[in-house]
């Protein structure tokens, strides 16, 4: 298995390296329209209120953020609107110097006042504006603008994820004048500083952007424009890709679609693969018996052969990697040697299942029957659900698979109308503050559906959040992970695996472990 993991990481490195070498070796060409598919459609145009990749893919090319991820060197950040930045030694002040001559698409200059107004809208939205990531920025005490090119963020408490937050793809910088006049202006209008100007959005059909000639990065973007076509049906999307009607779809494909396209198109396409910042977790409703007993939950975790399951499921579903609470491969995630020590992650499945049976016996649970709530989306929920049913059957547990439509699934999880459910945890970036939020107490986390309170987890969460020393933070996260997996309120099963298929002429696009990143299309070009 170590071999498998190494080869996977090697493949990732090759893919990333390959893309990078490609871009360096060839001189980018100007021109062309990039046509790509998007498998859903954004509800409105406001970055601060959006949560979906369907928003990022068509909208992100119109905007800039303060920082962004250095595409070939993820998770390193680099300046987007910011030219440089400093953090005070106490970690409580971040000072950003902005790049000069940045203009909005209407020709007005972008200054520090726009950055301040945009972040104030995120931290404290007014006038009916919606900001759904307020909590991530709650440590910001004040924002100052000593001059038009400088922004200073003062924090109430240290936050190890602050730089990552400033690179979040959701933190679009809006025009201060526009949002002052109407705080809801961005909901229905697209006015950014990004590489592409908004042309049209035909609801249900497509979205068009054209090159912004006054873009502050000289010579960019390379493309004349882009056309995002909304194709919700998977088969229609793959057909469109095969016919060359679209050159990519940037969320991800199943292994079956990859194999079909590879067979049909051969070397006309490039396949990019990466571990994905999305995990499937089984969450137990701790308000329902016997799931209030840690022994029962741990037994159900011990029964799952994650390693063999990952190997088998990766052939049919978009999952592949075994991991704990953080994405496998991420610098803060547990290494395999650490992972195998956690309950349910050992390599000897017979031993683990014997222990599971013993735990159930100690808890006085016989002939356990579970109604298992699962999402009705085939990929990857159904195959993973079936896998879990089989794993639990092997310790004598009977499972009824309940796959209602999505609305009922979400309401069931949130409302506590379930016993055990296949939940998910998807984020835009690798960030312990984001991913660990799934596991802290229900009164602290809106995505804890296990309905439990565990102050030890809350305390460790806060400590790691404020720890700026990476080594110490790593140790705190391991302690958090060990406790979370022992208690097994929510147990990670297998992490997703992202597969992107691009036609060969797409250059300058870099694979990342997130379908929310690297989508400003600033450096993308077409080798026609």
């Amino acid at each position, binding site marked *: 298995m170590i071999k498998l993991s190494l080869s996977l990481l090697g493949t990732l490195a090759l893919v990333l390296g390959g893309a990078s070498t490609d871009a360096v070796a060839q001189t980018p060409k100007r021109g062309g329209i990039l046509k790509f598919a998007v498998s859903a*459609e954004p*509800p*409105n145009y406001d970055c601060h209120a959006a*949560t*979906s*990749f369907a928003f990022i893919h068509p909208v992100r090319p119109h905007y800039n953020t303060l920082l962004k991820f250095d595409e070939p060197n993820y998770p390193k950040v680099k300046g987007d609107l910011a030219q440089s930045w400093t953090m005070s030694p106490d970690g409580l002040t971040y000072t950003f110097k902005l790049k000069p001559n940045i203009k909005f698409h209407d020709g007005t200059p972008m200054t520090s006042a726009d950055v301040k107004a945009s972040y104030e809208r995120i931290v404290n939205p007014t006038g*009916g504006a*919606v*900001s*759904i*990531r*307020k*909590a*991530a920025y709650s440590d910001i005490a004040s924002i100052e603008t000593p001059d038009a090119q400088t922004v200073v963020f003062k924090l109430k408490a240290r936050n190890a994820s602050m730089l990552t937050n400033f690179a979040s793809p959701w933190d679009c910088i809006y025009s201060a004048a526009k949002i002052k006049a109407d705080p809801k202006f961005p*909901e*229905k209008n697209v006015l950014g500083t990004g590489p592409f100007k908004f042309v049209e959005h*035909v*609801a*249900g*059909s*497509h979205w068009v952007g054209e090159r912004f000639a006054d873009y502050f990065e000289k010579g960019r973007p390379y493309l004349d424009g882009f056309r995002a*076509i909304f*194709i*919700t*049906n998977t*088969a*229609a999307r793959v*057909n*469109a890709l*095969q*016919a*060359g*009607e*679209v050159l990519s779809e940037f969320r991800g494909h199943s292994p079956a679609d990859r194999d079909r396209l590879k067979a049909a198109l051969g070397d006309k396409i490039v396949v990019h693969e990466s571990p994905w910042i999305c995990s499937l977790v089984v969450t137990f409703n701790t308000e329902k018996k016997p799931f209030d007993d840690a022994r029962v939950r741990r037994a159900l975790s011990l029964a799952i052969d994650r390693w063999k399951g990952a190997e088998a499921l990766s052939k049919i579903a978009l999952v592949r990697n075994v991991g704990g609470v953080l994405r496998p491969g991420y610098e803060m995630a547990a290494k395999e040697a650490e992972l195998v020590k956690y309950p349910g992650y050992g390599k000897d499945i017979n031993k683990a299942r014997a222990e599971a049976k013993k735990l159930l016996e100690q808890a006085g649970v016989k002939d356990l029957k579970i109604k298992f709530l699962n999402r009705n989306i085939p990929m990857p929920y159904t195959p993973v659900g079936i896998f879990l049913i089989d794993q639990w059957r092997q310790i004598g547990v009977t499972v009824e698979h309940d796959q209602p*439509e*999505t*609305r*009922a699934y*979400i*309401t*069931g999880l*949130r409302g506590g109308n379930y016993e055990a459910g296949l939940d*998910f*945890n*998807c*984020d835009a970036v690798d960030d312990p503050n*984001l991913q660990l*939020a799934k596991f802290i107490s229900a009164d602290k*986390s*809106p*995505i804890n559906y296990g309905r439990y309170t565990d102050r030890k987890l809350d305390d460790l969460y806060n400590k790691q959040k404020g720890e700026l020393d990476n080594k110490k933070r790593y140790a705190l996260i391991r302690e958090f992970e060990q406790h979370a997996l022992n208690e097994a309120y929510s147990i990670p099963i297998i992490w997703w695996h992202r597969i992107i298929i691009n036609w060969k002429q797409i250059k300058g696009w870099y694979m990342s472990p997130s379908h929310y990143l690297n989508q400003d299309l600033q450096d993308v070009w077409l080798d026609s």
Partner: protein
Amino acid sequence: MLRYTIHRALLMIPTLLGVAVLVFVLLRLMPGDIVEMRFLLEGGQVSPETLAAERARLGLDKEIWWQFYDWMTGIFVGDFGISMWTGRPVIGEIATRLELSMQVAIMATVLATMLALPLGTIAALYKDSWIDRLIQVFAIAGLAVPSFWLGMLIILGLLLNFNWIPPLTFTPIYEDPAKNLSQLIWPALAVGYRYMAVAARMTRSTILEVLQEDYIRTARAKGLYERLVVGRHAMRNAMLPVITVIGLEFAFLIGGLVVTEQVFNLNGIGKLFVDTVTRADYTMVQALVMLVAVFFILINFAVDLLYAVFDPRIRYN
């Protein structure tokens, strides 16, 4: 005839009111709402306060009776509301898709009618012959094959043989007829085949029935040409049920091409229906259901009037 027309028109009002109440209540009986769908679908870490504020903004915190009252009073002044998902007027959202759906429905109806009437008549006139059997096999295949599956076969056939698929976005026929037809002819064929099968079988059976009538025997006994017997006497009387079938099928096509539109990536009313029901976009679903109900009722009204035209007995009753 005028009294008959007014009577039929007035019957539309309670029908529409019943549909309105039914769709309004049924939608709210389903678990979950649009706020959860919008913010939690991809695992967003959204606070309960934000969700509550959004519900209040959309009016979902009001009593159900008030919500119904707001909707009804809006409809009476021609305001069908704002889509809870996009924040845009639902009328505009529907109008964007209606042109495409109407065109597919019209094309499928024309194709189906042009084939169904002659095929059904020929099958009836040559009852139990090889021609009849051939037409019957063709028609039954049309009934047995789901339109979306036929659509998938068409797409795959085009892709594998010509490395081509129909355009993914809609171009109005008055802007570029060739591009428009290259997109819409395929779904029209896929749904028109089943439509044709239904109408052809109905034509055959009603003509067979009419051909047994005394007045047909009398017409033949008078020495009329068979062409006139069939064309003037049999066809006219056989058309009543066929018109009903064609009318109902046409109304169904406006909002019923749910899967076919997905297969061809058509931005039509059927796809909008699925999307909005999935998202629990109440205002949009309500408007769409009312639109389809109005279509069905108007088509039924037109069919009823045609009945009266074709059959004077209906007028006198």
